[in-house]
């Protein structure tokens, strides 16, 4: 067991003791904890500025115990750009949902990634608009029923489009340093997610780092928490495959090791 394993049982310093408003079984809270643990692990709480989105995690500024900025819907990467251009010495993360990041904020995320802004983006993908009551998201699966795709997302007859894979999309750009997707659906997944988030934060000074979490929204999916996790495991992972898609530092280390060998 390393230090990270035992950290699960304590309260991360970078989380406030404020009770969250998240629904039972929602994985936003888990994602927050992982971010807070990464900040703690790197010892950077006092120089971190977090940017929260508009979405269910809009109140994240209450939950993280570091300086926090509330952005307008989708613009967190632009706000983070402003923060880091002014203060490159700060650590800056955004925390965004799928409507926020992959719909209204698509331009901001693509361009922040393309400029390789040294920020860490945490993307919570639950395939739905949670806060506004369960409308279709850009990541909603084909056939998935939402309040604005009542017969199931239909890309053919109703022109509702296909789920957008953000990590894969960003992976076409030259800029980013680190791109990964990890689920939060089981303890083992959360364990792996912790490493991924810490890796992303630790590489932030090198450039743009991005972690997508496959999460759930039991409330708007109309499922019990366990059922929601099982459904996500069965249906979402095949559309949003898990993995580290890019780690420029690791690639560079491997390349230089190969050269030496």
């Amino acid at each position, binding site marked *: 067991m390393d230090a990270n394993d035992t950290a699960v049982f304590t309260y991360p310093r970078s989380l406030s003791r404020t009770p969250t408003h998240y629904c039972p079984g929602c994985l936003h809270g888990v994602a927050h904890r992982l971010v807070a643990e990464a900040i703690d692990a790197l010892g950077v*709480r*006092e*120089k*971190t*500025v977090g*940017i929260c989105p508009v979405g269910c995690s*809009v*109140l994240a*500024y209450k939950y*993280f*115990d*570091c*300086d*926090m*900025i*509330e*952005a*307008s819907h989708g*613009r967190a990467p*632009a*706000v*983070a*750009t*402003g*923060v880091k*251009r*002014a*203060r490159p010495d*700060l650590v800056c993360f955004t925390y965004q949902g799928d409507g926020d990041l992959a719909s209204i904020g698509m*331009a*901001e995320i*693509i*361009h922040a990634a393309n*400029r390789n802004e040294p920020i860490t983006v945490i993307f919570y993908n639950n395939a739905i608009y949670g806060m506004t009551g369960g409308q279709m998201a850009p990541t909603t699966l084909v056939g998935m029923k939402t309040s604005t795709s009542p017969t199931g997302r239909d890309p053919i007859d109703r022109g509702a489009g296909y789920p957008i894979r953000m990590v894969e999309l960003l992976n076409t750009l030259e800029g980013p340093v680190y791109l990964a997707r990890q689920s939060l659906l089981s303890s083992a997944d959360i364990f792996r997610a912790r490493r991924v988030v810490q890796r992303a934060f630790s590489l932030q000074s090198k450039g743009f780092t991005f972690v997508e979490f496959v999460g759930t929204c039991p409330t708007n999916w109309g499922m019990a928490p366990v059922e929601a996790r099982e459904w996500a495991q069965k249906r979402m992972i095949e559309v949003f495959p898990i993995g580290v898609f890019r780690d420029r530092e690791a690639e560079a280390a491997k390349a230089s090791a190969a050269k030496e060998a």
Partner: protein
Amino acid sequence: MGEKILMKGSEAIAEAAVRAGCKLFFGYPITPQNEVPEYMSKRLFEVGGQFVQAESEVAASNMCYGAAAVGHRVMTSSSSPGVTLKQEGLSYCAGSELPVVVVNVMRGGPGLGGIQPAQSDYFQATRPGHGDFRYIVIAPATIQEAVDLMMDAFDLADRYRNPVMVLADGLIGQMMEPVVFREDPPKEYDKSWACTGCAGREKNIVNSLYLDPKDLEDHNFHLFRKYDEVEKNEIRVEEYLMEDAEVALAAYGTTARICKTAIGLLRAQGFKVGLVRPITLWPFPYRTFRKVADRVRFVLDVEMSMGQMIQDVRLGVVERCPVHFYGRVGGMVPAPVEIVQQVQRLLAE
């Protein structure tokens, strides 16, 4: 005072910002203000600052929001259609009480409109985006004034923690005039509210969300107490040849300059005409117009719009005298002789 330098309006505005201690510029190209970002893209790196050509005006205004949130002087510039997109980030700046300076070099509309000078953004400057809030709006009529007001804009933004819009038009942007830059160093303001990392203090939050209606009402009350202070302290207006005037022209920016030429022509013919030129469009000099209205036969409001500032002129005059309007739009600039003819016609009525 420094030496006199011959400069193009847009570049003088940009240089004034740099001298006011602004090291950050976020913008998106649009005619007729491209010289501002072009100048900044070179100049800011010379002074250890940063320039980002943003993906859109929406992004640019939100980058300003981020830079202002960490306590840095920051600006953006654009022209009318771009300013529409900037309204989002600027409303959040006002709600979160962040100082930011935005230059709007107006062009004609609606829609894509044209690229020639206009004053048809008076409404979107003085009645800005969503929510109850104000920009402090200042309107220069010469390049020297643009330089001075630009430096003041950063102080106003910092003092009141609010967006300040410098409202100019393509003529100011494109003209060349000799200017002198003030040499006083940028003033320091308390920015203990900024998100600079929470070392040695409680965390700071920059936010415009108040879910409890009572809290949001209180926040609005707070903002408006601040706006009352602005109205009390910051109104600026020029009264030109008004002492003996029987007719008052009302105009701002470039149009005011043209009015002065027209007044020269009218006075040469014996007509006692003066000008009231609002320099701050918000707060608006209502009192000056009320005072003037009792002394003149009428006010002729002249704009490069279909009549926007005239609404405020009427609020000031409150029917104490007639208020007439003359406007040219679409990039058409009123000639002094047109204004002369309007005054002569109205006097003959």
